[in-house]
């Protein structure tokens, strides 16, 4: 603080200097270990800097000394609330490198699991976002439905969070006998439950006050900042990799890309709610059309891709997750780059927060939907 003369009116007395506020890394609303440095003028944010890296484990370095099959479980631990999506990205990248055609049944099962994971991830996001803003009840309801999905995963894959769901070439196991019934039971309730959340929040005065008009991101700026996923679609850009560059048979399914109009926090909420419904519809279509057949392609035991490089990205719940693999013809990748949606979307936090109040920063961290395991890798 600079020394000021204490003479004068109270206006000059309270003409406050800028203050630096340190938020995190243990702040509950930062969803992990994100440290945000805020420069404040009164309660208005005038500057912001993110300090990340607390969870950095060097996955890209580790990958250079592991074989292709050994790397998949590391992907579970990036975005650990959407492990199945991460697996799909990596596995598809390696399959593209190997030029392997995955059986149709495996592709459909992958779609079912990935879309269920998207619902689970969005539910976790909704619950935690609401609790950050002050609505405690929603979290309990969201976790009730998420639990159903995790139970389906547990019986299919053997794990709830760090799933290791897919293998290079397909799936390790076929669906268990009650799988279809369990998923259909879940689909029967999910639409009604989303209605319940919307009843709780859509016209809730506090919710509207905390989200409408907060953190408006115009579409051109969002694209220029490399923002992807629901944040980009909330700004009104109709970009979804499932439609733009379909992978794993997404071209077989009929679904909409929900977009927002004004690009504020409320629109991003609406987009994610609509995505839950769309995902449920995709799962239903995939179950209806689930073909018979093998779930594993013929992949050699020792995976040695040709000397090549590939970039593959998919639409994860948080945005575009991508893998850039450089193969030197050996069993281990020469270089593996993870394109992390949370990390790149977090860049927008500064742009979104400046001019808003401190309390809104909490809502804005929530609306970007970050997972620090993926930000830091």
């Amino acid at each position, binding site marked *: 603080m600079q020394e000021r003369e204490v003479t004068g009116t109270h206006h000059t007395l309270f003409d406050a200097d800028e203050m630096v506020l340190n938020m995190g890394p243990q702040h509950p609303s930062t969803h992990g270990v994100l440290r945000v440095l805020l420069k404040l003028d009164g309660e208005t944010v005038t500057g912001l800097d993110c300090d990340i890296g607390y969870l950095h484990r060097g996955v890209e370095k580790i990958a250079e000394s592991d074989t292709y099959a050994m790397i998949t479980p590391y992907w579970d631990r990036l975005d650990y609330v959407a492990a199945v999506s991460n697996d799909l990205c990596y596995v598809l990248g390696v399959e593209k490198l190997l030029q392997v055609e995955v059986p149709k049944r495996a592709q459909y099962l992958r779609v079912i699991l990935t879309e269920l994971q998207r619902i689970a991830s969005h539910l976790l996001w909704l619950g935690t976002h609401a609790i950050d803003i002050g609505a405690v009840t929603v979290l309990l309801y969201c976790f009730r439905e998420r639990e159903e999905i995790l139970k389906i995963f547990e019986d299919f894959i053997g794990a709830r969070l760090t799933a290791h769901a897919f293998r290079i070439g397909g799936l390790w196991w076929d669906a268990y006998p009650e799988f279809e019934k369990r998923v259909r039971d879940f689909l029967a309730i999910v639409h009604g439950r989303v209605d319940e959340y919307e009843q709780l929040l859509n016209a809730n005065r506090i919710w509207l006050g905390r989200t409408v008009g907060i953190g408006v991101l115009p579409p051109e700026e969002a694209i*220029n900042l490399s923002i992807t996923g629901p944040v980009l679609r909330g700004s009104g850009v109709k970009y979804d990799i499932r439609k733009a560059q379909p992978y794993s048979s997404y071209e077989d399914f009929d679904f909409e890309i929900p977009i927002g109009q004004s690009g504020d926090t409320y629109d991003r909420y609406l987009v994610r709610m609509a995505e839950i419904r769309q995902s449920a519809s995709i799962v239903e279509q995939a179950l209806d059309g689930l073909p018979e057949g093998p779930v594993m392609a013929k992949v050699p035991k020792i995976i040695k891709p040709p000397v*090549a490089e590939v*970039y593959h990205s998919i639409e994860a719940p948080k945005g575009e997750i*991508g893998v850039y693999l450089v193969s030197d013809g050996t069993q281990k990748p020469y270089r593996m780059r993870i*394109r992390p949606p949370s990390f790149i979307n977090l860049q927008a936090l500064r742009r979104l927060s400046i001019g808003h109040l401190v309390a809104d920063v909490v809502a804005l961290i929530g609306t970007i939907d970050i997972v620090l395991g993926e930000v830091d890798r």
Partner: protein
Amino acid sequence: MPAVPAAPSEAAPTPTDKAPSPPAAKPTPPKAPPPAHGAAAKPAPPPKKGPTVTVEITGDSLIDKVRQQFGAAITEAVATLGQQIVRVNKQSLVEVCRFLHDDPDAAFDMCADLTLVHWPDRKDQELDLVINLYSVSHNRRLRVKASMADGDSCPSLTGVWAGADWMEREAYDMFGVKFEGHPDLRRILLPEDWPGFPLRKEYPIEYRDNEWTDKHLDYREVDYDTSLIDVKYSERR
């Protein structure tokens, strides 16, 4: 009857006789030199293009336009596994990127990914900058590459795509390449005073920087006052 148990008992000694002899011979191999720490990184085989995977791009209107516009600055335009790659001279990188961003036929408005690859065996081209671009309006991807020598700086692309900001910071953090013109080039994932750049090939994977650890992570052994515990214990008795 006696012949049956006799057979195993006779057979048994032979393996046990044989078994001790290999351990007697074994003690020498374990004294092989321990794996050299870091200095001997995995020797990368020379990169060679497989004929089936990589093909030259011909007859693509956009690539032709870029070639026409920049001539010798475009050193290579190939498609690997159907993905288009354009290699650009580092000196004209920003102009090419500016063109790819602004030109209505290209309109690569999103820098999807930016990273580096380290090739220590390449002379004067040790580092490859790899940018994956995406055009939302044309739904098209393009990879732009630029080589640079070790220790060279690289022009920053934050002026073209604001999203390159953190990706360039990460690239600097992991490879030590300075991006000229970057507004705020600091380490992003690693601590500010971290020594070395981990994703370079000479950086060892199994390695712990004791100096850094001693300085920053206070691993002091806690001194328990055992005499006090004894007193309490005796008092209780």
